């Protein structure tokens, strides 16, 4: 995202806050593929991801007035809404919470780590993040990526990586702390 793209998206959100439907349509045109991809990766089911995307945009419409107070980049704000919705949907308590969904999801998770982050992550903040991610142990990097991008819970990660729950939790916690220290040193705390 360039500063100009960010400013353009922020302006669309401001117009959404004023109940301008065309602004929401523009916002949807510009961001829905990216956000649908984010949700689909977490939900792993098209029908769920579609519901999440719909809910997310209705929420963006309703809460566009709060965006300015969030003090974050527009895509960061919208991605957080979509990820939260996806995770809440995925983790929601279900009546017959059989192992079926879990098995299906586990089977659908790509076994190997996503390609080199530096290739996928463009932009300055992203480059700093990619560099710091490369500095982590491979287990830490893999578990943080699987958790954030693919929406795996602690328990799912433990099953996927065939490691004890406590070990996986420690990887993530230590990995995140190292990541934060590295990004702070690089001067991009993101705040």
């Amino acid at each position: 995202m360039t500063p100009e793209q960010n400013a353009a998206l922020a302006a669309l959100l401001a117009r959404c806050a004023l109940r301008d439907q065309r602004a929401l349509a523009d916002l949807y045109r510009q961001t829905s593929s990216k956000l649908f991809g984010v949700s689909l990766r977490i939900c792993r089911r098209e029908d769920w991801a579609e519901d999440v995307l719909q809910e997310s945009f209705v929420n963006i419409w309703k809460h566009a007035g709060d965006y300015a107070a969030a003090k974050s980049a527009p895509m960061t704000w919208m991605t957080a809404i979509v990820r939260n919705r996806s995770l809440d949907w995925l983790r929601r308590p279900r009546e017959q919470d059989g192992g079926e969904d879990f098995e299906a999801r586990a089977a659908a998770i790509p076994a190997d780590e996503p390609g080199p982050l530096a290739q996928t992550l463009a932009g300055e903040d992203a480059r700093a993040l990619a560099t710091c991610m490369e500095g982590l142990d491979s287990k830490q990097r893999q578990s943080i990526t699987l958790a954030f991008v693919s929406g795996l819970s602690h328990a799912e990660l433990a099953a996927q990586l065939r490691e004890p729950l406590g070990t996986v939790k420690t990887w993530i916690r230590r990995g995140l702390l190292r990541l934060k220290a590295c990004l702070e040193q690089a001067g991009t705390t993101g705040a």
Partner: protein
Amino acid sequence: MKLSADARNRLAAEYVVGTQTHRVRARIAWLARGDVALRAAIATWNAMLTPLAAAAPEVTPPARVWRAIEARIAGRVFGSRPAVSVWERLGLWRFAAGLSAACAVLLAVYIQQMPAPAPAMSSVAVLSDDKQQPALVIMWPPQTKPQNRHVMVRALTQTAPPEGKSYELWMLPTPTSKPVSLGVIGRDARQVIELTAAASIMIPGIWGMAITVEPAGGSPTGQPTGPVIYSGPCVKIG
């Protein structure tokens, strides 16, 4: 519940990375509602980790998703607000076809006469009365720097609000949306009105501007209460 800084940071990090159970997530979301520092920690982690989301490939959603969203937000829009009918009655749309020739000439002359403006202006609105006579020109620079957060107001005729009243300047994001106040304008022929950060973000995309007659000091409601006396569309010039 009072959280230590460490605990807060750990909860925020795990919340954002998304590994917790539904129950823990709900609990943190609930805590965050009443805890500014926790919300800030979550925002910081979101800003740090969100670039990772780019690792998920883009997928175009099916058209039915947008149709469902559109159906759900319809009816929650400006349609029946009284403030809108004021703008609609004005027939502001007529301006959208373009400025009248007189207006354009006047504008060209006016811009030439301006003493080497720094920074360059990016947009202009010529506000006219109900007989289409131009009365004020509003101009503003590109909103690229904090020091550009202002509009310049030039009166073309001598005009003043009635005793005990004020003129208030409004921007219209679209012909039918709720107006947003830019503040009360004084009696000087040349004025500069500072923009709030929110107004500065909005102004590059706005459709038009208008001035209403309000109680002294401006509208008490945040929306126009008095008659529109000048209005006009915005035109990009830079």
